[in-house]
């Protein structure tokens, strides 16, 4: 179930609830969090609540306030409102319990990956074994290379290692997979899943919707400094993702096809749109695919291929942020947004 900004916890049991400890205080709690930089409002009354053991995803457009919220929660920027981490203000939290990967982070460049993990681990009372941490992030083979000689993805994985070296109870990861190749991303995903399974609470911000959809138990969507929706990914998709669709590729004859004829053949049971490569039939459930094919044949449409897809978190994001992509218009257009969710 998805929620408005005013309601911070879903009524229904969210996905991943088995990881959490029932009846415990939230790890992160924010109420009416506000932050401005001059005339620019970065956070506008944010409410947030993250339960123990939860992977909490924070998504939103550039400039929505995600990094500012992470900074407020880690005590690296001042913000108005009530903010608590482990029941105390962020600046009073035992640092041993928190790990942070800042969005923009460039550690000393002439230390090796091993030395960097040793360095950050050496600042804590207790730290994990450096070799084990580097293995966790897939950096064991390049552990002795200077940071400045690593690829972008290797650098980011090394930075992730510095965030988990103290074995934190709460881990803030601000865009952890930026610049990482697919294999590297998967190793980070597996790491996050393993950490969550072991009870670590993860606060994850990302622009990779598939990543958040895969990893997060609950997701909050931030827009213009306010939470416009929060809930389990499946609930958000069901509420805001729209209908499943069938993409029909027509090849060179695409321009000659009459979308209205197909609509008529479907007796109005699904909406048909023209796309650059053919047609998009919206509202087609899996059991309706056969009917859709019949309708295409009845309308005399010879297609090259069909691709059916369910709505995803990306559709939710695009719809709620008003950045829905319009291929016919040739780019991103301001779409109708659900102001009622604010």
């Amino acid at each position, binding site marked *: 179930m998805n929620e408005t900004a005013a309601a911070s916890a879903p009524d229904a049991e969210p996905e991943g609830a088995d990881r959490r400890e029932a009846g415990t205080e939230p790890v992160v709690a924010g109420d009416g969090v506000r932050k401005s930089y001059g005339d620019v409002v970065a956070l506008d009354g944010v409410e947030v609540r993250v339960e123990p053991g939860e992977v909490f995803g924070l998504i939103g457009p550039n400039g929505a306030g995600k990094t500012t919220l992470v900074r407020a929660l880690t005590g*690296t920027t001042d913000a108005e409102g009530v903010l608590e981490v482990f029941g105390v203000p962020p600046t009073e939290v035992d640092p041993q319990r928190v790990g942070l990967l*800042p969005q923009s982070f460039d550690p000393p460049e002439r230390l090796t990956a091993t030395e960097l993990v040793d360095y950050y681990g050496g600042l804590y009372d207790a730290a994990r074994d450096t070799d084990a941490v580097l293995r966790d992030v897939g950096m064991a083979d390049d552990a002795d290379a200077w940071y400045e000689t690593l690829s972008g993805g290797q650098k980011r994985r090394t930075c992730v290692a510095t965030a988990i070296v103290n074995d934190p109870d709460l881990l803030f990861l601000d865009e952890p997979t930026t610049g990482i190749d697919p294999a590297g991303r998967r190793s980070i995903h597996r790491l996050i899943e393993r950490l969550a399974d072991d009870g670590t609470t993860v606060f994850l911000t990302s622009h990779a919707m598939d990543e958040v959809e895969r990893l997060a138990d609950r997701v909050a969507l931030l827009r213009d400094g306010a939470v416009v929706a929060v809930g389990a990914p499946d609930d958000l998709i069901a509420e805001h993702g729209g209908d499943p669709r069938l993409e029909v590729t027509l090849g060179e004859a695409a321009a000659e096809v009459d979308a209205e004829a197909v609509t008529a053949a479907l007796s109005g049971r699904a909406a048909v749109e023209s796309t650059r490569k053919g047609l998009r039939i919206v509202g087609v459930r899996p059991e309706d695919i056969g009917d859709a094919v019949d309708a295409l044949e009845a309308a005399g449409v010879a297609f090259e291929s069909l691709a059916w897809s369910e709505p995803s978190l990306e559709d939710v994001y695009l719809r709620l942020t008003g950045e829905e992509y319009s291929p016919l218009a040739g780019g991103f257009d301001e779409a109708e947004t659900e102001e009622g969710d604010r």
Partner: protein
Amino acid sequence: MTRAGRIATEASAAARSFLRRRTAVFFTFFFPVILVVIFGALVQTQPTGGGLFAEPAGYYIPGYLAVVVLFTPLSRVGSEIARHRDGGRFEKLATTPLSRTEWLLAHTLVNIAIIGAASLLILGLVLAVTDAEPVVSPALAVLPVFVVVAVALFCGLGSLLGALADSQDGVIAASNTVALPLLFLSETFVSPALLPEWFLPAVAASPLTYFARGTRAIVFEPGPWLGDLAVLSVLAVAFLALGAYAVPQTD
């Protein structure tokens, strides 16, 4: 991890990181060497005549030492703060047990080691290429203390400059602007006799003056140095405290 352990960890990482920047290491030591060679060997002093270098060669030993004691901490700590800020390192460190004071103390230790080595190099070079003959006395053992205290003081000032300037370029410009007048108007290379009387209070207000007076009382004109060391120590504590407070922790 104890406070000492955290400081040692930070200092070790900072030292290793610095020593691997060969250009930075080379010019940190080459800069004072150039000054000694130019002023000590090429220009030389003219004790019987007028002009800038009218004092005996030994008079300028504190000035040569002041070059590294002043310039190096200002530029290094200031630049390090700018580098940390640009790289989001303070944001990361703010979530670790390392405090701002510990961070500054660690970087002060690194500077003390670097500048201690550079000071030995300068002293050796001054003896080799000039006519200076330092006074050898038990008080010579206090010379390293003056260097340590002065380096700590200027690390604090460097931290203030790093926090105030908004970029590495700004830090370099600011540290040069502060250091150059201090270097020449603190009884180092320009004796008070060459300055107008109305300017002498400004000379007395410069922390570097007390370093120059104290070290000169040890290596050139034997005299009391404890008062200068006391003033320098009080200022060092004050600047370190201000500098630690200025180390960025939030945006």
